[in-house]
């Protein structure tokens, strides 16, 4: 049995071979195995669905991206126009991939932290059915031209109803699991999940009533739209991403959170400040100036919870960064946590008028969006799925190489996508608002560096100095590069889906010697989906073999 003991000075986990491996108390192993077993079917259904939508959404994203630099592509097909493809991409990444992965992770985490199995898992499968039906109908509706035309809320009301039912069931289940908990204490991840479970229905119901059922008139529509759009990111995806990181980082490296006090403070300050920030999406829009100012202040206040998370995760990992080489989960989750700090600090500054005004209508914003929803949230969900699925199926991942392909294509892909969109968007913004001439023409005149200097140096506002069509043409190389990064990411997603399918179906050669299951499972607690007996035996080399 390979075991990692805390022998380094900083308490960091290092791998050593124990002299005599002590057997774990059977009641603890069987308790965890029973919980995993109860989660197996519902969580795998939510994960499998999320991965299906991830692939579909990625293809839609890629097609949307291609259409921005090949505008004639499928232009004659109404259902393939950009105005329909883009909202399908957005809604499927948000409610298909993001929310379904989040709910799967949340159910497992809640059961594990409460130390009780999930009861009546069939109801959660039923809820996934509602959710999937909603996504299918919503996608067809948008492609058929029946979109609501409100960003983040394009699905028709009947779809919202289906999603709401699916969500209500999962929320009740998560809360029931918590109510039956066998531990008194509420771990910080549970606080974040409570927040998410409480806020999401509140947001979604409010916005459905105020924008779709009995719509308010005029400017408040935009304000409510962006109160929702921002909060669905900050009070639904963000808390679930952070809950996961707060569990997995310490759990994987075997070291408690550096400062539990900071983590709790981070939760309550997030709860206090995020809700104020939504109107920063409407800076310079036709809303009262004080409302924008309040949102800017709220955005800056967000630096407090963000700093608590950044300091805490960094200090927890200090001395353990070398473990990134060995744990797939850790790689994805630490990447995601770092992205959280970067995207949030960037966001706080984007909420300043001076930063926002030149870049709002550019690809720069799209760069920030992908840094948040992909580099932060999506990467953490990937890491969580790497941790959870083997424990549900009782099977090790089939291939290290595929995991590494998945990690590197997505990590490099999203980093490049962010850079390309940020730089391309910045040039676009300067050309639209401030530059005296286009970057290309200044480079022709002054050379590469001289041109860049003149371009960014000419800070006085010269609205309209560069013809709009030249600006559009200037974005094309950046958009082509974005499509290439999209291809890289798609390759990573395909690798991931192959891994999960092979794991769940036990296809192909099964790897022996899995590190993910450390101990012999009692015969009564074999994970439900394992077709082979998932017991582990010790090998002299310190590894494990599955018998």
């Amino acid at each position, binding site marked *: 049995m390979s075991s990692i003991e805390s022998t380094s000075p900083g308490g960091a986990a290092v791998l050593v071979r124990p002299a005599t491996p002590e057997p774990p108390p059977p009641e603890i192993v069987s308790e965890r195995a029973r919980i995993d077993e109860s989660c197996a079917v519902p969580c795998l259904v939510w994960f499998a669905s999320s991965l299906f939508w991830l692939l579909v959404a990625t293809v839609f994203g890629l097609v949307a991206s291609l259409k921005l630099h090949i505008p004639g592509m499928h232009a004659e097909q109404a259902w393939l126009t950009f105005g329909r493809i883009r909202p399908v991409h957005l809604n499927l990444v948000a409610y298909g991939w993001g929310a379904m992965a989040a709910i799967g992770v949340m159910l497992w985490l809640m059961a594990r932290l409460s130390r009780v199995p999930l009861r009546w898992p069939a109801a959660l499968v039923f809820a996934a059915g509602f959710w999937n039906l909603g996504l299918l109908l919503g996608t067809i509706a948008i492609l058929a031209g029946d979109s609501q035309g409100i960003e983040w809320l394009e699905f028709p009301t009947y779809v919202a109803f289906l999603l709401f039912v699916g969500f209500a069931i999962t929320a009740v289940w998560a809360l029931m699991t918590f109510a039956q908990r066998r531990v008194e204490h509420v771990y910080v991840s549970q606080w974040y999940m409570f927040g998410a479970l409480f806020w999401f229905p509140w947001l979604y119901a409010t916005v459905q009533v105020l924008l779709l059922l009995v719509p308010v008139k005029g400017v408040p529509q935009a304000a409510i739209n962006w109160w929702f759009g921002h909060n669905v990111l900050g009070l639904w995806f963000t808390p679930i991403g952070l809950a996961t990181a707060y569990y997995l980082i310490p759990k994987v490296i075997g070291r408690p959170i550096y400062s539990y006090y900071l983590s709790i403070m981070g939760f309550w300050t997030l709860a206090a400040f995020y809700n104020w920030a939504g109107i920063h999406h409407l800076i310079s829009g036709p809303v009262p100036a004080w409302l924008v100012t309040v949102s800017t202040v709220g955005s800056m206040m967000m630096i407090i919870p963000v700093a608590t998370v950044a300091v805490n995760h960094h200090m927890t990992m200090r001395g353990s960064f070398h473990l990134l080489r*060995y744990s797939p989960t850790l790689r994805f989750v630490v990447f995601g946590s770092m992205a959280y700090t970067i995207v949030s600090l960037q966001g706080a500054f984007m909420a300043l008028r001076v930063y926002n005004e030149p870049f709002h209508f550019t690809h720069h914003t799209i760069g920030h969006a992908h840094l948040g929803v992909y580099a932060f949230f999506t990467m953490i969900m990937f890491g969580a799925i790497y941790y959870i699925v083997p424990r549900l199926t009782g099977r090790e991942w089939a291939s290290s190489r595929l995991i590494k392909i998945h990690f590197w294509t997505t990590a490099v892909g999203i980093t490049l996508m962010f850079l390309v969109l940020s730089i391309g968007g910045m040039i676009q913004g300067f050309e639209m608002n401030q530059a005296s001439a286009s970057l290309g023409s200044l480079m022709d005149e002054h050379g590469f560096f001289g041109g860049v200097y003149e371009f960014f140096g000419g800070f006085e506002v010269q609205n309209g100095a560069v013809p709009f069509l030249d600006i559009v043409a200037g974005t094309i190389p950046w958009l082509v590069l974005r499509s290439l990064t999209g291809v890289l990411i798609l390759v990573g997603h395909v690798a991931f889906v192959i891994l999960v399918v092979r794991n769940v179906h036990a296809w192909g050669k099964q790897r022996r010697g899995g590190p993910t299951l450390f101990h012999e499972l009692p015969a009564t607690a074999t994970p439900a989906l394992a077709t082979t007996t998932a017991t582990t035996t010790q090998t002299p080399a310190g590894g494990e073999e599955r018998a």
Partner: protein
Amino acid sequence: MLTVYYILVFTFLGLFSTSVVLAFWWAVRKGEFRNFKEQAAAIFDADEPEGRLTDVFPGMREVAETNRKGAQVG
């Protein structure tokens, strides 16, 4: 119509704020803001104690081999 909105908005604002205050009060009473050290360690068990890595790439047996020779990982 406007009155209905005002009533709705303020009722829900009230409910929302009250629930947050209640949650905070509950947390204080339950001692969630004490014994931080113990609370942070709540995710470890006797068989997955502090100091044990719980996730490794499949087939990283060679890591264990290295350690068998006395070298530390990293």
